[in-house]
């Protein structure tokens, strides 16, 4: 199980993956937006999205959980 956490304060612009999706290493899970920049959050290994902890429009803090990959 891998937890994907936020590297910075950001707004969740787009949720690309859904719980239950099969993802490959490097697939985009969500796209964050901070300081006028889009920041894709990628899966760091293949697996299944067990949980997506954010929704579009959420403001997240550094270290907040974004997704769990199994």
């Amino acid at each position, binding site marked *: 199980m891998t937890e994907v956490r936020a590297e*910075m*304060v*950001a707004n969740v612009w787009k949720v690309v993956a859904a719980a239950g999706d099969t993802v490959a290493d490097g697939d985009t899970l969500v796209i964050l937006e*901070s*300081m*006028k920049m889009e*920041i894709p959050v990628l899966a760091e290994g293949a697996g299944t999205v067990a949980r997506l902890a954010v929704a579009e429009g959420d403001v997240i803090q550094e270290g907040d959980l974004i997704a769990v990959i199994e």
Partner: protein
Amino acid sequence: MLASVLVANRGEIALRVIRTARRLGIAAIAVYSEADADLPFVSEADDRVLLGPAAPAESYLNGAAILAAARRTGARAVHPGYGFLAENAGFAASVIDAGLTWVGPPPAAIEQMGDKINARNLVERAGVPVSPGSRQAVPDVTAALAEAERIGYPVMIKAAGGGGGIGMSAAADPEQLRAGFGTARSRAERFFGSPAILLEQFLAASRHVEVQILGLADGRVIALGERDCSVQRRHQKVAEETPSPGVGPQLRSAMLAAAVRAGEAVGYRGAGTVEFLVDEPAQRFVFLEMNTRLQVEHPVTELVTGIDLVEQQFRIAAGDQVSFDPASVASRGHAIELRVYAEDPRRFLPSPGTIGEWAEPAGPGVRVDAGYAAGNTVTPFYDPLLAKLCVHGADRDQALDRTRSAVTGFVITGLKTNLPFHAELLASAQFASGAYDTSIIDRMRAS
């Protein structure tokens, strides 16, 4: 001269405009969002109005709220700074319709240059060189593939309504074009409200050099030298200098003349910038776009000419003469600007946070245009620019030496900044030699 001005912007540029306004005896009114209440530009203004929540659409992009603030405070003029509403022709027109002075170019000039396809066609007719590219919007992938075939790969995919390097991508072949076209369209729609796309021939290994122009109150357009803006990450500028190390005297005079023609073609008034790509070995240039506003990096021009560009904006808007003799503008020495961003110096990812210590460098030739101070919080809602470190020297070597010391002397704690990147840039042989192009950062990061 104007009696008062509302500054419809935030951060360093709002503070910079407020300072010149006050020096000229113009009362300065700040508008701000809830996220910016503690920033220096709010306290330094003569009066201030809260616009609304942090989101730009509810604050700095909310034209109706800004006009209401102007009415409430009795502001006689509006200065838009750069970004936000600065290149919004509709907002400029609504300021003028409200009986206020717009400290910027005529709305028609903003509109004509704001559409990149129209701008290309228009300056080409005025005799300004353009690269092979679209003469009308490219509606779909099929049309894009045909257009790229005509232009020749590699091509740059751009938003016709865009600017600031956002949503741009290069395509080396049809496969990359197919992949990039959809992304470019959705970004164009999202950021600029128009999905129109154009293609242009992509010049690898070029320099990005722009010319500062001023359209005077009497209708003349003059050029105040160039700025080299080739140090970029994600197509956005990080460091600028003037004069450009890659532009010889003949090329310079041709570029300045072309920039004046571009300004004349739209009846330009006030401060504007004509951007070019320069093929250094061939000493040739092509038009990129025109920014119908004050540019972020305008201080380097101020440092070598001794001219306060914001003062000239106010004078021209008021219908007055500029403060210098347009026939004898001299450029003295060399100037460098480094954009200090709240971002990590390795991957350039945003790093909002709360500033602990903030200590600016000082010394001969050093000027800091800052938007923040110790204790301020840098939020994720706006661009990452914290300050501009601007340095003047008698020649490029002295400017470089002074800039190196100034970077070392700039202390910001509590969040990540790109100051370590700037130290790295100044230490690199490429930048020091002056022989660099727009891929300098990619090359630094590849090694």
